[in-house]
């Protein structure tokens, strides 16, 4: 079986941290060893999430991992979930997401929850509350919380046309 390549993200750190080659079939212990070899500490408090999973991988080293695929993201940290708030006009909505959830999924949830039309949705973007940062859609939300604890608040704002 050929190796798969996965990208490792460390909670609270901007941009991916490392790239790992793993056998197509492996156990949690193999993944933990590979993370440690890449310089990430894995202890009893560490949680490992795959892509946008809501639950972390089990801690048992012998547990086989079946759903990791070529190009998957592995998120390493200590937060089990992140509370996301989205402000739009006079409303604020909240939901808890797994740390590897991407901004695109948060936006999809928010526009549905707020009852936005598809057209309005394409013309709005999530901006970090109190900042000008508009994270790229593929950004995992744990990269945004590094200064905000276990939660992140967005404003859903009109996306500005580039003019001038």
């Amino acid at each position: 079986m050929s190796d798969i390549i996965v990208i490792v993200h460390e909670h609270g750190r901007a941009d991916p941290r490392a790239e790992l080659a793993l056998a197509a079939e492996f156990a949690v212990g193999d993944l933990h060893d590979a993370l440690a070899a890449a310089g990430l500490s894995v202890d009893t408090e560490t949680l490992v999430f795959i892509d946008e999973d809501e639950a972390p991988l089990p801690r048992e080293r012998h547990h086989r991992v079946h759903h990791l695929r070529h190009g998957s993201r592995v998120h390493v940290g200590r937060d089990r979930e992140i509370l996301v708030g989205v402000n739009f006009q006079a409303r604020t909505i909240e939901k808890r997401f797994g740390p590897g959830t991407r901004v695109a999924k948060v936006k999809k949830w928010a526009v549905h929850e707020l009852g936005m039309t598809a057209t309005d949705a394409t013309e709005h973007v999530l901006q970090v509350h109190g900042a000008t940062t508009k994270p790229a859609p593929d950004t995992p939300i744990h990269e945004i919380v590094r200064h905000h604890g276990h939660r992140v608040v967005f404003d859903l704002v009109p996306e500005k046309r580039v003019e001038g």
Partner: protein
Amino acid sequence: MPAVPLPPDRVAFDADLLKPPYRAGELAGRWRVVEIAWPAATVMIAAVPRPGSPTEFAFRFDLSGYPAVAPTARPWDHVAKAPLPAHRWPTGTGVFASVFRPLWCGGSCLYLPCDRVSANGHPAWATQHPERLWNPSRGIVHYLEQVHALLTEGGYAGARSA
């Protein structure tokens, strides 16, 4: 015959292609470099499916002075090795239409604050669009992310000729 050393901007670009931020997008199918003819490079960037439209568009980058100097990029016909004709450009509404302007500079660049040709003469963009400005520390992914977001989230409607 002694090997000719690569210029520093080429060395920096090659190094960035090996780093996790670029590799994450490449492995996820968001973008891929298909040709380097320094200082030019062609990058395919994925688009959401739209009737009669390609699933990715090619962009020809000029990366002279990378990463200190912002790149400039234009839609490209990778098969013909020529600028993409206007009638085959991607089109859309809102922000998308404001960035993809075939009539701007003869279609030689995108109307983006991170594009060095377009940024020239737009000092107000530093305060109007700070998140879109060229970021040398993030490198090529900063440009690629913006184009990919426009082709997948930002009002993209398909190719003009569709």
